[in-house]
């Protein structure tokens, strides 16, 4: 074997990548239920990671989580009620089914309920993260800079006073407001966690990691609150600083505690409130959250947004585009027209997702330009949030359970054994019919299965009983390439060509047919992926990769072996 041969190296690379991609699945499948429980006890996040990167077994094979949601119809006006449930189903589907390979089962129950069955998960609390909760997307204005400064100054002096009483008081007085604040914070914390995890943020445990030390900030006597806020919403055009601030992640628990003090609450007017950003961000080498002072009044609702998509502007910077029509356009035109050069906060369940400045009056088509350090990932995240926020109705989870497999152990065993038997029969048939060449094709076929499983693992796909049968089937079909080639080589040999010439001609002449059949299948897979949804999309993903991989094994892996066989006097085919 020639070591300069790119085919060998590429295949070795693919094998290594596949082993890595498949590793978690292998671990997951070989892990006993007891071990899983033990891991869940000792390191739940490790189990979650494992569950995400392994091939999940579908509802029929392993069961999963069964969640019943109720659409809160009472919070909707009559016209919105009509199709609320269908739109909610669509949005939940989008959320749990991003890549189309999770294969959730989502269906209506009665008049106001939605059942979501998520395969492969064993932890019920994770269901909430995936499905999310209310998802109320609102647009709010910020408090004016003048008023904000006033409020901040008053909070500063309230905090200073609080600290003085703390200093003079004993330690038990110190603990009292602390636990009260913790209690008051409890219900809020839940939603924070869920949302931040939905966004893929792992910084939620900052409170535990950074125990705050109040002694150190005794130095900043004058304005303990404002020194911890770093203004970020400076408008270059007007030279005004709006009340949006970066706060060190480590400082957040302290700021939360202060804001929850009754004497601080008393300083905040009833029509404004503080709101955190959903995620923390790296800024000047520090992890920071953003804190905003928002007017409570809801200016605009996410349900009016249409045609949301992320992309780039003329300069290649990441942006999110949206469009509006009818009432939404009129309302948004009014809102933006009278607030040019002011920031507009987009909040999802009271967490600020984005705070773009209004550059001009927007009626029908809007564009949100992301910050200078933003990535396309950020734009894509905002797109998902805006789409999710178009949820027409608030939903609540009224039931969540772990459910077992829908198929009996007996059915699963039958399905699995029959697939394996089918595979073995095919391997034998090809091996007997084409002799050594057939065995080579069989080896290629086994590579095919391995690569396909690795790709599916990489996508976090869900394997169902029909999925297994389908894989075996597409793989059986993928032998078609080899059969076409072998028949061609046989034809060439019959015309009296040498082994070398016959192999060359066989591969060469079969190529057109193989190329065309693969491209037509890829076109089908592409169309099904683009326009299909749910299980159709899942089918498209495995079809696409099945076909792509079979082309690779036929023209790279088995071809490599045939190139070696070219020097043979006779060919076993």
């Amino acid at each position, binding site marked *: 074997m020639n070591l300069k041969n790119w085919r060998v190296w590429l295949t070795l690379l693919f094998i290594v990548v596949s082993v890595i991609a498949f590793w978690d699945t292998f671990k997951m499948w070989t892990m006993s239920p007891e071990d899983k429980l033990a891991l869940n006890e000792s390191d739940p996040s490790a189990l979650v990671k494992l569950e995400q990167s392994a091939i999940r077994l579908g509802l029929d094979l392993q069961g999963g989580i*069964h969640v019943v949601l109720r659409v809160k119809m009472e919070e909707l006006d009559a016209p919105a009620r009509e199709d609320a449930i269908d739109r909610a189903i*669509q949005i939940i589907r989008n959320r749990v089914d991003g890549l189309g390979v999770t294969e959730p089962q989502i269906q209506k129950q009665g008049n106001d309920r939605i059942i979501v069955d998520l395969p492969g998960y064993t932890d019920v609390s994770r269901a909430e993260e995936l499905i999310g909760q209310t998802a109320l997307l609102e647009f709010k204005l910020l408090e004016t800079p003048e008023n904000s400064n006033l409020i901040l100054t008053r909070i500063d002096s309230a905090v200073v006073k609080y600290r003085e009483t703390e200093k003079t008081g004993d330690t038990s007085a110190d603990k009292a407001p602390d636990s009260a604040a913790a209690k008051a914070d409890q219900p809020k914390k839940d939603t924070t966690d869920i949302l931040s995890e939905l966004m893929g943020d792992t910084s939620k445990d900052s409170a535990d990691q950074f125990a705050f030390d109040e002694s150190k900030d005794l130095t900043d006597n004058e304005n303990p609150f404002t020194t911890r806020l770093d203004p970020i919403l400076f408008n270059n055009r007007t030279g005004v600083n709006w009340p949006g601030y970066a706060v060190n992640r480590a400082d957040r628990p302290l700021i939360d505690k202060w804001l929850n003090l009754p004497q601080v609450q008393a300083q905040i007017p009833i029509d404004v409130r503080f709101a955190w950003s959903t995620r923390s961000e790296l800024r000047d080498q520090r992890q920071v959250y953003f804190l905003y002072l928002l007017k409570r009044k809801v200016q605009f609702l996410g349900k009016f947004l249409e045609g949301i998509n992320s992309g780039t502007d003329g300069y290649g910077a990441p942006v999110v585009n949206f469009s509006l029509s009818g009432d939404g356009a009129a309302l948004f035109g009014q809102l933006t027209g009278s607030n040019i050069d002011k920031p507009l906060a987009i909040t999802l369940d009271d967490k600020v997702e984005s705070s773009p400045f209004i550059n001009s009056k927007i009626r029908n088509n809007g564009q949100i330009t992301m910050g200078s350090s933003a990535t396309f990932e950020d734009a894509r995240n905002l797109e998902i949030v805006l789409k999710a926020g178009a949820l027409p109705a608030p939903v609540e989870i009224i039931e969540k359970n772990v*459910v*077992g497999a829908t198929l009996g152990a007996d059915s699963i065993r039958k*399905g699995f054994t029959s697939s394996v038997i089918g595979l073995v029969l095919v391997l034998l048939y*090809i091996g007997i019919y084409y002799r050594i060449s057939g065995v080579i094709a069989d080896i290629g076929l086994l590579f095919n299965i391995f690569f396909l499983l690795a790709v599916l693992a990489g996508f976090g796909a869900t394997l169902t009983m029909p999925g297994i*049968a389908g894989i075996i089937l597409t793989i059986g079909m993928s032998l078609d390439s080899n059969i076409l080639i072998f*028949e061609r080589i046989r034809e060439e040999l019959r015309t009296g060509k040498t082994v070398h010439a016959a192999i060359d001609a066989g591969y060469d002449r079969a190529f057109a047919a193989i190329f*065309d059949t693969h491209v037509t299948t890829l*076109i089908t897979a592409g169309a099904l992926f683009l326009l299909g949804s749910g299980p159709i999309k899942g089918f498209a993903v495995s079809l696409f990769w099945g076909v792509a991989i079979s082309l690779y094994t036929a023209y790279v892996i088995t071809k490599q072996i045939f190139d070696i066989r070219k020097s043979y006097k006779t060919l076993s085919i």
Partner: protein
Amino acid sequence: MFRLIGETNINFLSIRKVAYTVSSILVAVGIFGLVMIMTGRANLGIDFAGGVMITGHFEKPVAIEDLRAAVHAEFSDVQITDLKDFAKPNAFIIKTKRPETEAEGEQKLRRLNQIISEKFPDHNFISVSEHVIGPAVGQTLRKDAQKAVLLSLLGIVLYLWIRFDFRSGIVAAMATLHDTLVVLGLIYLTGIEFDLLIVTALLTLAGYSLNDKVVIYDRIRENLKRFRTRGEFAATVNASINEVLSRTINTGMTVLLVLGALYFLGGEVLKGFAFSLLIGIIIGTYSSIFVASPIVVEWEARRPKRFK
């Protein structure tokens, strides 16, 4: 060299009139079946039709396998799952397909409860809730799937138009549609439950059948280039079919071996799936040889393009 068939010279085109008649009848049945399925008058699975869901629990432990066996003895379409952390232990979800009428539904529910209390008399089944559930494959999903299939047909016609010619593209796409329709009709006639699994089978079969046609067209294209000056079009087409015949049979065999294993050994779940594919593969192979190729020949005979 082990060969199932040697070099053949069968005149496949000679029986095209018979094939056209058979195909027309089968397609008519297929369209009828399609209409029945679309209007919900066929045997639709719970994925498409929705149904009734009972949540309940036993007062004493019941093995899920026993419960399944008891219920499946009478209703094979009932789906039973165990609820693991329900408020009460021994809880189950029982899903059954939506029956034709309300009265039938009532009756089926009553019968289900009856079976359970008869088979497990001392365990006392308490039904916590009974709800009507909608189809898991909703309107949006259906519309998306239809759009996707249309787009893929268009893409295929366009691709084959570029690679071969316009008529090949049209005929291949139409013949594939023919295969899918015929299988749909047979599914309707045999009363196989139409569910997501069958949709997957139809998509797979469409892919297989299209491949089959492309392989033959490819051979025709190659032979036309090689023997540009001699022979007539019909003979070239017939020769091409004969030349790829051993490939057609071998590829068909590998797929049939898998499907046979799934059909005979795969149990109830995979039976409908394997059956639709089995007939699909046979129909697909038949239409490549006896329908798609002759139509190209006749098209050429009426409006000569290649041999003027």
